[in-house]
């Protein structure tokens, strides 16, 4: 099986060092990057699938050149190669531009499955997968908790999380699947994996390489615009209660009563 996993480097949520530049873009130099958490779950699922069925996992990332650092971690986990879509012309891309670029790159690749994470921790959008599947006219299966391909039949089954349990979906391959945390805990790269990752190939593709006109993608033709940015309003100071459990309980109930929550 040939699986392409869409991965995005995001500012490390634990570092809490995100800053925007004066023109409203993420200052990536100030923000240490990690692979987006939900992307690691689908990468883990992809690795298990090729372990079971044979095949190759390709990481596909659209990001500035330093994304090779986070892609190396994916390769160390076991992905076979990486394709980095990187071009100064792509700076400031909105979702629309991102979709065009990913679609152009995927048209050049061969795959049975494309996997993407449920959303990213920076923007929490979760719309790119559906749009890419639609542009490529692929079956789209989302909110996956389990992925079960049947390579002989050329079909794939997905357990999709529903409000009341799960829906079992089935479609032909190739297909695009958006997955969740329920796919399972991602592995840590082994020392052997880290060593092997050093010699794995990461191909960088520019806008021109992809056959796109630089005037049709990137921040220059963004169809959305930033109007303003602000820090979230500060929360009121924390009131700390130490004492007997009964005193603590009373403090909680008094507060709830004062806000008419009980």
């Amino acid at each position, binding site marked *: 099986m040939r699986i392409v996993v869409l991965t995005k480097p995001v500012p490390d*949520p634990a570092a*809490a060092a*995100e800053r925007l530049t004066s023109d*409203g873009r993420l200052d990536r130099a100030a923000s240490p990057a990690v692979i987006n*958490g*939900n992307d690691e*779950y689908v990468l883990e699922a992809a690795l298990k699938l090729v372990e079971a069925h044979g095949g190759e996992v390709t990481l596909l990332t659209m990001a500035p050149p330093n994304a090779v650092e986070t892609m190396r971690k994916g390769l160390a986990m076991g992905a076979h190669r990486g394709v980095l879509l990187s071009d100064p012309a792509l700076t400031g891309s909105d*979702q629309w531009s991102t*979709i065009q670029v990913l679609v152009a790159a995927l048209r050049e690749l061969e795959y049975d499955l494309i996997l993407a994470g*449920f*959303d990213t921790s*920076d*923007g*929490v*959008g*979760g*719309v*790119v*997968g*559906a749009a890419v599947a*639609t542009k490529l*006219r692929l079956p*789209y299966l*989302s909110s996956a908790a389990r992925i079960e391909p049947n390579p002989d039949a050329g079909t794939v089954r997905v357990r999709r999380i529903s*409000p*009341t*349990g*799960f*829906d*079992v*979906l*089935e*479609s032909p391959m190739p297909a695009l699947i958006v997955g*969740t*945390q329920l796919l399972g805990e991602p592995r840590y790269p082994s020392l052997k994996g880290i060593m092997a990752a050093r010699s794995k190939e990461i191909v960088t593709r520019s806008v021109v390489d992809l056959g796109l006109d630089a005037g049709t993608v990137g921040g220059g033709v963004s*169809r*959305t*615009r*930033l109007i*303003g*940015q602000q*820090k*979230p309003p500060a*929360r*009121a100071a924390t*009131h*700390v*209660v130490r*004492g007997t459990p009964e005193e*603590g*309980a*009373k403090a*909680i*109930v008094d*507060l*709830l*009563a004062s*806000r008419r*929550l*009980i």
Partner: protein
Amino acid sequence: MAAGTIWVVAETNADGSLAKSSSEVATLARTLADAAGGSAAGIVVAAEPKAAAEELAAYVPRVVSIAEPAADGNGWAQIAAQRVAAILASESPAAVLTGAGPDGRDVAGTLAALLERPVLVNATAVTWDGGPSVEMSVFGGKLITTSGFTDGEWGIVTVRPNVVTAEKARPAGKIEVRKAEGDLDLPLVRVVERIEEAAAALPIEEARIIVAGGRGVGGEDGFKLVEEIAAELGGAVGATRAAVDSGWIPYAQQIGQTGKIVKPQLYLALGISGAIQHKVGMQTAGMIVGVNRDPDAPIAEFADLVVVGDLFEVGGALLAELRTRK
């Protein structure tokens, strides 16, 4: 220039009723249309759309109801998006709003591709200023941005649950019943089985009050206390990823970075340290109360009230106190 119509793509529950998030988004569409001097309209695409269309008409003056047999037994979002795209082709939309939950995102992404339109995601507030002015919480809530579409563009906006309170309008809107016309071009995804699981009594996205447990709760037995307090307060039960990974509670109740983002009026956190991965899912709650043994836990930096103590002792006393005051 006339402001055009602000459209809502409605989602339905398994029983055919209108999703709560769609009543919120429809209320928002009506409010924005009033501000824009335009109109609001909604679309329901379902195998049996009648019930949801009638509910939706309580919120917007115009509802297009499309009975789509293929929606029974196939993945919904792509089918719905194709029908919506066909309707909008002969309209002049000023914006399209959907929910930001799993189905809303899927329909928004598909529509964006079909209509070749830009998208703004996960709105925490929307106002109108010549077009939608969309507030978004980014980087785990550390920054709030406001964005719009560029001049001359209209686009699709996904809206988080609980950022608008649903309010019905009077009089109710008109319903146009239309047939599903034309072929569905996108590949169908078949639903081969529906598996029902014992679900939480109240979905956390819709709850006014959430009582949540973390690692400190210690196990499934410990969650019984969390459930009892939630029941006493009329709230829902939430959890951290640690509690879900340990198998104490289903993933559907996980709050945080790879779980759900919630905005209840009260968030009562029992045995939750408040690490960033959890905080991003609940930091905008109206009031945050923590019970924790460690007074230096991160939750003490953003909660309104922290009670330092053993969660079982304080929780037990809280249950008793709540029952006394009833």
